[in-house]
């Protein structure tokens, strides 16, 4: 930009000189006309006009040029000896001195005015950028939004490549994206500055291997939360890079003021704290669940010992109490397991251990786990004996089925029928569980897969966390499958089905060589 500016000035200067010359010529013609028609003897004072115009419009050189041309023209045309450049009249010398003085003073004034104008125009642009910047900060959602706003703002204002590093090790999203563009030596300095090992409030210039000069400095010397920036100055002369440094300073002072005004430092630490709180919460749920399960193991174990103790064998009422203890402990254990599963799903996703499994095994194992809960329902199985093998994590699919059975039991009356059917169709295995229970309304069908979704209609009569089907669908999704729920309406029962892709082609050459 500055090189272009310099070429521009040279052209401007030549143009100024040419126009000045024309102006002087025009003035000469005008003075000639005045002498002829009005009879004025010497109009040479009029040559001040082109001098002043040149000084205001084109600067000091064209103005002096105008002064010299004016004196020469008046010497040639109006002072004796006429039509010779010989200067005899001392008036002419005074004129020359006067013109040159006027040229210098006026051009100085004009150029100062012009510089001020330019500055205020630049300031206007900066302010507009700053305004856009603060608007972006106002809608920033997290730390990386704020950082990329700072980065983009600087890049827009100083027209250089800017990379912002948020902390000692982390860089913003965009920095990570083009961290390859930041040379290693610059990154080392950035790390030093960010860690406070190096004082750099005024900035450190680093010359990279490619010859580019990078400026590294903290965004704000006072608030390290704002991070450290690296700006690529390219291969510029010392002067222009000094200019640039001053510019960066101004921009950063404004930007920091905006950041401070908006309480961004606070927002950044808050966002960090939020992330840490999330981690803490997951860890807490994990450890609390573990801590809860240990006493539960004692309670459940002790209850089962009591229930078969000879002393209680004939005490039907006490037996019933012991069974309550056992059943409730089991329910609590299931709830804790659900919490643990939910934490596992949201913290690091589910990693299935895939193996070839027989769907019938999975279904039987799920039925087995729910044996007691299903005891007062009529379970009707429809399992063809030629179901294809599926490549899944059988334990996850089993747990999903257990959740479905749990739901079916929870929302259907004792003695009703629960039908389980499995079939293979169009390269998929479909396992569906149909109950004769409460069914689903349209609205419920839409929300049933949400985390913590609970049927409000039946909230008073059933218990649960609303995590069950959410966990089930996450487990099935981890195995590449899908879940559906359909119902003819409230009170008309529900069918929940699991759909898992069957890649039968991947079970090769088995019949031929597995058995000789």
């Amino acid at each position: 930009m500055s090189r272009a500016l310099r070429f521009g000035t040279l052209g401007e200067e030549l143009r100024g000189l040419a126009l000045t010359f024309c102006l002087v010529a025009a003035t000469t013609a005008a003075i000639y006309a005045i002498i002829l028609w009005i009879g004025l003897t010497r109009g040479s004072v009029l040559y001040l006009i082109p001098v002043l115009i040149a000084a205001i419009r084109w600067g000091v050189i064209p103005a002096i040029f105008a002064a010299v041309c004016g004196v020469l023209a008046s010497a040639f045309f109006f002072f004796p000896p006429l039509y010779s450049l010989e200067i005899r009249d001392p008036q002419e010398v005074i004129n020359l001195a006067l013109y040159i003085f006027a040229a210098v003073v006026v051009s100085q004034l004009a150029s100062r005015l012009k510089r001020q104008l330019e500055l205020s125009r630049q300031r206007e642009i900066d302010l507009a950028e700053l305004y856009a910047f603060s608007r972006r900060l106002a809608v920033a959602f997290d730390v990386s939004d704020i950082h990329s706003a700072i980065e983009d703002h600087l890049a827009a204002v100083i027209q250089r490549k800017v990379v912002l590093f948020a902390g000692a090790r982390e860089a913003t999203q965009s920095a990570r994206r083009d961290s390859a563009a930041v040379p290693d030596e610059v990154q080392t300095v950035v790390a030093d500055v960010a860690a406070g090992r190096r004082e750099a409030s005024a900035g450190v210039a680093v010359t990279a291997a490619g010859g580019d000069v990078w400026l590294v400095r903290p965004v704000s010397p006072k608030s390290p939360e704002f991070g450290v920036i690296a700006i690529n100055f390219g291969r510029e002369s010392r002067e222009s890079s000094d200019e640039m440094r001053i510019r960066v300073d101004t921009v950063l002072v404004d930007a920091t003021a905006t950041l401070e005004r908006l309480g961004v430092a606070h927002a950044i630490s808050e966002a960090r704290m939020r992330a840490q709180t999330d981690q803490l919460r997951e860890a807490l749920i994990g450890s609390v669940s573990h801590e809860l399960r240990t006493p539960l193991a004692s309670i459940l174990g002790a209850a089962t010992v009591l229930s078969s103790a000879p002393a209680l064998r004939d005490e039907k009422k006490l037996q019933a109490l012991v069974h309550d203890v056992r059943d409730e402990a089991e329910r609590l254990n299931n709830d804790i397991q659900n919490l643990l599963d939910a934490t596992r799903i949201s913290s690091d996703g589910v990693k299935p251990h895939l193996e070839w499994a027989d769907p019938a095994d999975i279904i039987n194992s799920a039925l087995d786990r729910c044996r007691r809960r299903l005891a007062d329902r009529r379970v009707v199985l429809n399992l063809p004996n030629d179901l294809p093998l599926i490549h899944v994590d059988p334990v996850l699919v089993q747990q999903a089925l257990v959740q479905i059975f749990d739901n079916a039991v929870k929302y259907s009356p004792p003695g009703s029928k629960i039908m389980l059917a499995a079939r293979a169709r169009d390269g998929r295995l479909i396992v569906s569980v149909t109950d004769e229970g409460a069914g689903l309304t349209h609205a419920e069908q839409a929300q049933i897969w949400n985390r913590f979704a609970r049927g409000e209609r039946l909230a008073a009569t059933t218990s649960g966390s609303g995590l069950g089907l959410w966990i089930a669908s996450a487990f099935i999704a981890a195995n590449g499958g899908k879940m559906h729920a359909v119902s003819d309406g409230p009170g008309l029962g529900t069918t929940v089905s699991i759909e898992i892709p069957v890649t039968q082609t991947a079970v090769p050459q088995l019949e031929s060589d597995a058995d000789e």
Partner: protein
Amino acid sequence: MNEPSPIVLVVDDEVQIRRFLRTGFELNGFVVHEAATGGEAIRSATLRPIDIVIVDLGLPDMDGAEVVERIRSWSSVPIIVLSVRSSEAQKVHLLELGADDYVVKPFGMAELLARVRVALRRQSRAASGEPIVKVGPLTIDLAARAVLLNGSRLNLTPKEYRLLQVLAQHAGNVVTHQHLLKEVWGTIHVHDTHYLRIFVRKLRQKIEPHPDSPRILVTELGVGYRLAQSGQEGEAAANWTAPAAVPAKTDG
């Protein structure tokens, strides 16, 4: 019970768990020794005759898996592991280290007793060299290489018999997929679980009264298979008195 009382060593750092296990076992005619740490357990197992060890995985001084490994290095006493972690990979690892069985906490006393009885029976059968394994209507004569269902001889292919044989040798205990695949198909096929699935399905058609809901050759999801022993089968049967699942006549 005319036999001398079996001696069980309970290893758990939680006193409440030890207490209910002690009561549960004593009510069922066992003699109970307790240990709160792995070191104590190993010392106890070397000093006294022990018939079976119940060991918790989370011990203060060493991992329960290490206890299994150390005891197994000089003794063939049956070991049942109590674990809160229900990861299948860990179960497989423990079984490979030499544990006979595992029970996931929380568990009921009946479940643990059934496992303990099976392990003890297997131990006494191994000691006496008894070649006949009976599971409900199924009889496997390991000496004569004969399999009988309700007294009539079954026709099994060599691989099917080998599979049943390996399971019968560990009757009542879980045998991991890897172990079965290695024993029946060889080391190259240890990851080809689909071989197992197909053969187990065929085998069940021949040996199970209801192949749809198998009671003899039982799947331990993600771990392996178990040939149910009469103890376990009995327990299962008792719990199924009001049959929850009625296999519908399949149309397939």
